């Protein structure tokens, strides 16, 4: 019997569904409370200061934004590169991209010193600022992806969806380049100021976005008891392995380049050897747990075929991604600015001193709230609209391949 592809809303009536929704709502409530507290009292209640200017909220925000553009990749592979296997996943891919981006942007905006001035950010543009460009890139990404999903879902517009998908793909590449450039353009700080950061952020987005997609896909199909075939899942996990290895390659090149240039030796020594928490996060979490371990798990002949192992590997990639951004963002700021080469520096403003940072509960709640809002958007959307195929059995995903295997 030939199975056809049918999209259908999830039922969303179970107790588990409402508990999940309530739990996410609670996290979002805590985040909103934190925002009110931070904005009312001022940022003195946070761990951020005039030395560590961007803190945990920015790690969360940038992770979510980077993962958002990466989450769209699954749809792009189907639409732009014509891999029919991925097409049934395109709607969810677009949805997750929108949800993650909204979550990230909310965290970013709500951490501003003046979130009430959002209208100013939308109306006053300094076009030399990559930040200003990013505001346009984020909004454009949301609009393009919504149109893309609409064209996929609306039969009358179906013939245009390839064009929409193509533009969304190009746009997302520019968007992540823009996000990477936020740091790449910072000439002042030793750890940033590298053109390599832009392509590195693009490849990071591939990895983080796909890891998030795999987890959401597995959870959605598992919790709704819909069949998810090995064919598609194994294809995705192999792809994740390629992306994780690519990120690792960029990280190696980034550090080797810095190690070659004498002027960057000190900051490399800091991150790789003497940076305390940052060194630990780099080697143990980013490289060990977040890159090498998931690579080994994903490509292991037996473990690589176990679903819990695939889910664990995807989760590890996400944890490693957070660590990577934490080391880059916070570590890059903790290392003192090199203003007077060859001098020992001291001042009342902590010049020449490695700055320390410990995030407050408010910042943690805000960041987690961003993740919760992204997940809530996904859950509500798949509850009310037809994003998920009723089944992703091998016969539905790719009848020919399934027949051959059978």
């Amino acid at each position, binding site marked *: 019997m030939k199975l056809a592809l049918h999209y259908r*809303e999830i039922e*969303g*009536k179970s107790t588990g569904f409402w508990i999940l929704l309530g739990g996410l*709502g609670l996290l979002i409530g805590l985040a*909103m409370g934190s*925002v*009110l507290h931070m*904005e009312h*009292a*001022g*940022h*003195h209640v*946070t761990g*951020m*200061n*005039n*030395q560590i*200017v*961007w803190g945990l909220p920015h790690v969360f925000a940038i992770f979510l934004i980077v993962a958002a553009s990466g989450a769209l990749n699954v749809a792009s592979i189907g639409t732009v590169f014509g891999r029919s296997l991925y097409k049934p996943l395109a709607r969810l891919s677009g949805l997750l991209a929108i949800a993650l981006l909204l979550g990230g942007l909310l965290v970013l905006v709500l951490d*501003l*010193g*003046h*979130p*009430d*001035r*959002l*209208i*100013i*950010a939308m109306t*006053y*543009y*300094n076009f*030399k*600022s*990559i*930040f*200003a460009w*990013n*505001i346009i890139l984020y909004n454009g990404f949301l609009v393009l992806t919504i149109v893309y999903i609409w064209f996929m879902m609306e039969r009358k517009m179906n013939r245009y969806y390839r064009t929409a998908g193509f533009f969304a793909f190009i746009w997302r590449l520019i968007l992540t380049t823009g996000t990477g450039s*936020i740091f790449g*353009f*910072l*000439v*002042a700080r030793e750890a940033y100021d590298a053109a390599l950061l832009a392509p590195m952020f693009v490849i990071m987005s591939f990895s983080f976005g796909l890891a998030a997609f795999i987890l959401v896909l597995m959870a959605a199909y598992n919790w709704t008891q819909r069949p998810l075939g090995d064919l598609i899942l194994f294809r995705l996990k192999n792809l994740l392995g390629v992306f994780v290895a690519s990120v690792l390659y960029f990280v190696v090149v980034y550090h080797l380049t810095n190690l070659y240039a004498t002027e960057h030796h000190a900051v490399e020594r800091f991150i790789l050897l003497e940076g305390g928490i940052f060194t630990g996060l780099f080697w143990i979490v980013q490289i060990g747990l977040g890159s090498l371990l998931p690579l080994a798990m994903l490509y292991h002949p037996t473990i690589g075929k176990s679903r819990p192992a695939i889910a664990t590997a995807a989760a590890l990639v996400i944890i490693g991604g957070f660590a990577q951004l934490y080391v880059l963002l916070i570590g890059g700021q903790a290392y003192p*600015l090199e*203003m*007077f080469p*060859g*001098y*020992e520096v*001291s*001042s*009342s*403003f*902590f*010049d020449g001193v490695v*700055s320390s940072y410990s995030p407050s509960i408010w910042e943690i709640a805000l960041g987690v709230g961003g993740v919760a809002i992204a997940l809530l958007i996904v859950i*509500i959307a798949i*509850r*009310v609209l037809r994003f998920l195929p009723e089944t992703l059995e091998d016969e539905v995903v790719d009848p020919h391949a399934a027949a051959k295997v059978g």
Partner: protein
Amino acid sequence: MSNDVSNQMNTSRRTFLAKAGTTAGAAVVAPGVFLTTPAAARPADEPVDIERRWGILIDTAKCDDCSDCVTACETENGWGSANPVEEESSPEQQAQWIRKVGLKNKSTGHVLSLPLMCQHCETAPCVDVCPTGASFKRADGIVLVDKHICIGCRYCMMACPYKARSFIHETLTDQKPWAPRGKGTVESCTMCVHRVDEGKTPACVEACTAENHNAMFFGDLNDETSVISQELEKHGGEQIRADLQLNTGVRYRGI
């Protein structure tokens, strides 16, 4: 049959959307986060003389351990010890417009001290990165923050090679009318723009001269006859992080 199921689904969807919408609406509106009135528009710029480029020259040979320039700035602009309202903030969070930096040469052991503040770069990284244009450079070279359109993103602080800028972490009161400091915005040395526009010198320079240290010179870098230009011509002056080629308005001698 399939219609029935579809209808059921639609009814259930409507109920769900209505419930979810009400809850979400209440959650968004209740805290008032999105309902705040937008701030006033940017005021018209006052015309400044574009022929001038204001600058400060600091002679580190004459600069000792004193901090008269810092105290004068605090008093003039109402920050730090002069206006102890930042008591909620930690020392790492408190604003510093100007600070004394102690330097010791690692190979020779030579010790020197200098004041460090906004360097008023010609191509200021803070101005380049500011998304709204709140960070701006006046035609006469003074770099300022427009507090009306600063959204508090702190990207300028990430971009500044001199750590010259501070973010305000708490509510402030009793500000000076010419230094409107405020929670959630970024601020830095204004080169005492209010005094300069009245034909006076910045408070730090005035204090340094008054105490007879004479380590600081203020003037027009474009005017060949000004004291600062003549001092620079005679003895030269370096920029901190000259490698970045920012063409700073603040120059140092003896670094």
